[in-house]
Each structure stands twice: as structure tokens, then as C-alpha cells.
């Protein structure tokens, strides 16, 4: 792994406005290349919006965003993106391998002739990336018929097939059972380490990825704090961020639980209560 000297992502005094509401402001983030970074925070605070700002899909109201050395959006060919899912309907009769292939050349115009060299080369790359995420066994089945964890593997393969330098995942562990959560978390870590790709991942629950994280970006109260998990996920830091008393508890098996705060429930039961899409 050859780390690029410049940071993968830099946000300077960034702010985003949705309608007439400022979602977050004065956010300063620096993600060094090759790191595994999580975006944490309560619902509706603008975690997904942060990813979209990095992609250049949501304009900044203030400040600037430099991604892979270019203004946000200019380097998207080097970015793999997996939006918040988005599980496929059981009736969708499209194979997983076709979904992965779309990540490679789905944005091209025109047809590709099945017998061309280019097409064979594309097929080889697709099979290779599918093998990397251990999805070969079910990649030829219609995607609607495979399990949530298997779909997630295929979607990660889709995001990886162009060998991006930056991989952005929006709640990839959402709606997976616990064994699948840790399997996918481990897979993402392995990909990050093996190919030196920078990973920026929105997570609702930090615990499945906690052992692998280099940094966390914690969004709350309209601002953000960055640092190692040990620096950020503490009662003091979060209390200052939320402007209200917060307690971080550590359970006997090492899991972190955030208690208190107007929008930060200890138990994440309210996760589907209308986080704004943009």
C-alpha cells in the first residue's frame, strides 16, 4: 500500500443548508489516505448529507471540500459510493453479476458487443471483484432472491469494481443481523487494508466497526468533532458537542453505549423516523 501524500478528504469550515435550515456548519475534517473513518451521530443530523457533500451532490453553503486533491465532485470516477439501502425487491429479475457490472461501465453510452475483447476484460474484472468479496457462489442468482448480507457484499463489489481510491458507504450494516454485521465490517476493513483504499462510512452503531476504525467524525448539534474513537466517544467530548449532558458507558464486553441527549437514544429504536434525504 502506497499512501498518497495528500489527504483523501479535506473539509474546511464547511456548512450545508437544507431549505432554510443550516444542517451543520464550521465542520473541519481531514481524512488521511488509507484510513478507515466512520461518521457517527444521531438521526437527522446530516450524516448522509456529509457523504453527498463529499460527492459534490449537495453544494456547500460555506467553506470548501477537497476530495482526492480536487474540488468535491471532480474526482468521482475515483470514488466508490454505496448509498443508504436500498434492498432490492424479491421480484427483481437481474443477476448480482449484472449489478456489479453496472459499477464498471453502467454510465457508458452505446452497446458493448458480447464477443469484444473489451467486454471479456470487463467480465474478468467483475468476476475478480466478486471473488474478493466472497460473493462468487451467489452472484449468478437474481439479486432479489439472495439474502440482505449477500446483497450487501455484491453492492460493495459494485462500489469497488473500478478500484476507487475512496470508498463511501452509507449505513452498509443497516438491517443486517449481528453475524452479518461483523462479517461485512471485517470485509470492508480487509478491502481497506489490502488495497489501501480510504473508507468513509456512515454508521448508526459504532460497535461492529470499533476495532477497525482509525478515526471517527461525530456529528451533533450542528457541528462535528474528529479524532480517534478513544478521543471522541467520551462523555466530555460529546457533552461539549451536544451542549447537554451525555454519558458514554462501556459494557463488560467492550461495547460503547451513548446515553442522554435530546436525540441520542441509548437504544436505537427510532432509526427510521424520517432522517431527511437531503
Amino acid at each position, binding site marked *: 500500500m502506497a499512501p498518497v501524500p495528500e489527504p483523501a478528504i479535506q473539509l474546511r469550515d464547511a456548512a450545508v443548508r437544507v431549505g432554510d435550515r443550516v444542517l451543520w456548519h464550521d465542520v473541519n475534517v481531514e481524512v488521511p489516505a488509507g484510513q478507515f473513518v466512520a461518521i457517527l451521530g444521531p438521526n437527522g443530523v446530516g450524516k448522509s448529507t456529509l457523504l453527498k457533500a463529499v*460527492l459534490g*451532490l449537495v453544494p456547500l453553503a460555506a467553506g470548501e471540500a477537497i476530495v482526492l486533491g480536487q474540488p468535491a465532485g471532480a474526482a*468521482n470516477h475515483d*470514488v466508490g*459510493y*454505496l*448509498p443508504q439501502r*436500498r434492498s*432490492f425487491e424479491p421480484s*427483481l*429479475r*437481474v*443477476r448480482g453479476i*449484472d*449489478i456489479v457490472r*453496472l*459499477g464498471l*461501465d*453502467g*454510465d*457508458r*453510452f*452505446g*452497446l*458493448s458487443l*458480447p464477443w469484444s475483447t473489451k467486454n471479456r476484460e470487463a467480465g474478468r474484472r467483475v468476476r475478480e471483484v466478486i471473488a474478493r468479496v466472497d460473493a462468487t457462489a451467489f452472484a449468478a*442468482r*437474481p439479486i432479489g432472491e439472495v439474502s440482505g448480507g449477500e446483497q450487501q457484499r455484491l453492492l460493495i463489489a*459494485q*462500489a469497488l469494481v473500478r478500484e476507487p481510491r475512496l470508498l463511501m458507504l452509507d449505513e452498509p450494516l443497516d438491517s443486517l443481523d449481528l453475524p452479518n454485521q461483523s462479517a461485512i465490517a471485517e470485509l470492508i476493513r480487509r478491502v481497506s487494508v489490502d488495497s489501501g483504499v480510504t473508507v468513509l462510512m456512515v454508521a448508526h452503531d459504532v460497535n461492529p466497526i470499533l476495532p477497525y476504525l482509525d478515526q471517527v467524525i461525530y456529528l451533533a448539534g450542528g457541528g462535528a468533532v474528529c479524532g480517534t474513537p478513544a478521543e471522541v466517544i467520551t462523555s466530555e467530548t460529546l457533552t461539549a458537542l451536544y451542549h447537554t449532558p451525555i454519558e458514554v458507558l462501556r459494557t463488560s464486553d467492550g461495547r460503547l453505549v451513548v446515553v442522554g441527549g435530546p436525540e441520542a437514544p441509548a437504544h436505537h429504536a427510532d432509526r427510521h423516523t424520517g432522517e431527511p434525504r437531503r
Partner: protein
Amino acid sequence: MMPVTAGSANPSWSWNLAADIRDMFSYPFMVNAFRAGTIVAILAAVVGWYMVLRKQTFAGHTLSVAAFPGAAAATLIGISATIGYFGFCLAAAAVIAVASRPERLRGFSAESAVVGTVQAFVLASGYLFATLYNGVLSGLNDQLFGFTFGITNDQVVTLGVVALAVLAVLAVIGRRLFFASIDGDVAGARGVGVRLLGVTFLLVLGAAAAEASQITGALLVFALLVMPAAIAQRMTARPLAGIALAVVIGVVASWAGLTMAYYTSYPSGFCITSFAFAGFIAVRRFGASA
């Protein structure tokens, strides 16, 4: 239109296939029916494959229904029915595209409400035009249920040119449209204009519906637009193979239907639909046991 029907040819099926087919093709109206049926079956199968994938069959149905006021209005003001078909179907596609813009509506249920409203209105207009033009009963039947045996050479040429143009558009945008149809968010992040593709596809669908309704009639368009695609998607999950299979099924159903119509004097719309429907039932049974 030529006042020739299958009944006036007075044919009988002899089980000598070569002789039967030679007999059938000795009539220019049958040759034109097969030409038009083939062109339309190919176009409708390809467009229909995308329509089924995008779950826009309701929009497809509404655009086909728009062919009815189109043809009726053209008859009423005395212009070519072809202009009426394409004009009304494309206009209805544009209305649906504009009225179901995502800024205005959220979710698919809202889109289907727009589509339903448009459908009710075009049906009512068709009835009005047909009423204003007195004595159109046979014309009305043709507009609703198809009149394959009156297709002229000029109409075949028009069908062919429009089909080629639509297929050319699909060849250019096909891959992006596939991406946008099943994975809009990621496609959008990759710079694919999902919204513009949606509008383009509605217009493509309008053109295909206008073509198909000239063969099967406005109400039976689904025989060529939905059934081949639905059967193909049940049989294979491979995109290219699925499109090819849909084309084969559509062409076979339309040839078989036209042959049956010629030898039985049952309406061609009914015959084509019956063969497509038989295929659909067969594949459902086969699919259930597999």
C-alpha cells in the same frame, strides 16, 4: 384503408404448411400485416422489457389507451390516423413526464395517480371524438381492438422508420437506462442523468405504444408490450438474453396470431393476444414447478 378482411379471402387450413403459407402470402394485405406485425413485435418487446423492469406497465397501458383518442381525432378532422396515434401517445407521455416530476410528487403511488388521471381523460376524449363523428362503429372497434388487415405500404414504411429510430435511441442510452432503472442513486452519483432518462423513456414508450396499438388496437397493446417481456424476464435474469428472448416471443406470437386470424376470421387482436397469453400461462406453470 383497404376494405379487405380475412373473411373475404375465404381461406381454409390444409395442414400442408408450405401451401398454406404460400396461399396466405398471395394476398398483399397479409404480407403487409406480417411486415407490420414483425416490426411492431420487435419494437414492443425491446421497449416492453425496460418497461417491465421499471415497473411502468401502468404508464404503458395509459399511453396505449391514448392511441384511441388519437385515432378518433384524426378520423374526425380527416387527417392520417398515423399522425393521430403518434401525436396523442407522445403528448400523453410528455404530460405524464411533466406532471410526475419528483419535485412535485413523492413516491410511485403519486405517479400512478397522475397516470390514472391521464388515462381516464384520454379514454373520455376518445369517446367524445368517436361520438362527434357519427357512424364510426366499425372504426371504433378497429381503434380499440386492432385492424391488422388494412395496413398499407405507407403505414409499413412509417412503422419501420419510427421503430428504427426508437431502437437507435435505445441502443445509445440502453446501458445507462438499465443502470438508472435498477440503481438510480448510484447511477446519479456517477453522472447519469436519471431524470432526463426517465422522460426519454416515457417518450420511447409512447412511440412504442402508438406503433403497437396500430396492430393490436389500443386496448390490446399489452399482448405485445408486456407479455413477451414478462415471459422473458421469468425465463432468464440475463439482460441481453432477456431482450432477445422477448423479441422472439413477440414475433412468434404475432406471426401465429396473424395466421390464426387469417384462417379463422377471428379478430387478429384476439389471436395475437391469445398466443401471448398461452405463452405466459405456460411459463408460469413451468416456473412454478422449477
